[in-house]
């Protein structure tokens, strides 16, 4: 499974990598903002199975990135991982096309559970 981690904090990407390495057969790619992530997506043959997306990032924020991805790709699983916890923000992200939402700070268990939940739901669909 190919996962793209999109977060301007390398520390946060490393934490996510460490937690998600518990899943079998994972390959990671990383981007520091939405624009860089779009470039990586375009250059990756076969695309990604899952993208973890931060909201507040320089250059291009996570919500804009999600909207751009969803213009052409309805299939890739997208999870917003952000400090933005207001209901209106969550609704904005859901309307933009995210499959799930995890609020920082999160425990490793909570992150893994969200990812597993998202993968299971997609498999069942």
């Amino acid at each position, binding site marked *: 499974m190919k996962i793209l981690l999109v977060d301007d*904090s*390398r*520390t946060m990407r*490393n934490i996510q990598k460490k937690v998600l390495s518990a899943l079998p057969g994972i390959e990671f790619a990383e981007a520091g903002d939405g624009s860089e992530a779009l470039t990586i997506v375009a250059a990756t043959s076969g695309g990604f199975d899952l993208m973890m997306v931060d909201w507040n990032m320089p250059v291009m924020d996570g919500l804009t990135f999600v909207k751009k991805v969803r213009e052409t790709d309805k299939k890739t699983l997208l999870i917003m991982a*952000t*400090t933005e*916890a207001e209901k209106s923000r969550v609704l904005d992200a859901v309307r933009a096309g995210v499959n799930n939402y995890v609020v920082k*700070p999160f425990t490793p268990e909570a992150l893994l559970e969200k990812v597993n939940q998202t993968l299971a739901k997609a498999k069942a669909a």
Partner: protein
Amino acid sequence: MTQTQTPNPVINPKLIVPFMNAVRQVFKTMAGVETTVQKPFIKPHPGASYDVCGIIGFSGDITGTVSVSFSDSAAQKLVEAFAGAPLDRSSPDFADAIGELANMIAGSAKQHLGGLASISVPSVVIGKGYTISNMTNSQCLVIPCGSPFGEFAVEVSIKQKTV
């Protein structure tokens, strides 16, 4: 801390409590570190509380800045607990970790402040003698914090839009 604490009756608990809770939650959840918060006070001068500082800007219904500043030794140990490995103080990763801690504290508190505000990506200052100027002319409320690794402080200098 060496600052003189100015007693002031106008500290609004609705402004302070979300940050106190956010500090405890962020360090406990992301670093496994129990922290304590002490009585807030109005900052009597614009100088830095400590030498390592992550700063987040607010815009929208809330404007201003929130900074989280650490003593050098507290910063190094808290970052190690957060990142899972020691990071060199002069490395970009160290500043990144400080910025992300500030981001999570500001972001976690924001949802409880009311209104709809956006937060900036973090800025990080490492050094002595800096001052943080704020265009909102709001008072700077300092929340002194403690950890097993040393002291730090959250400085809240924000204004909420009056409806």
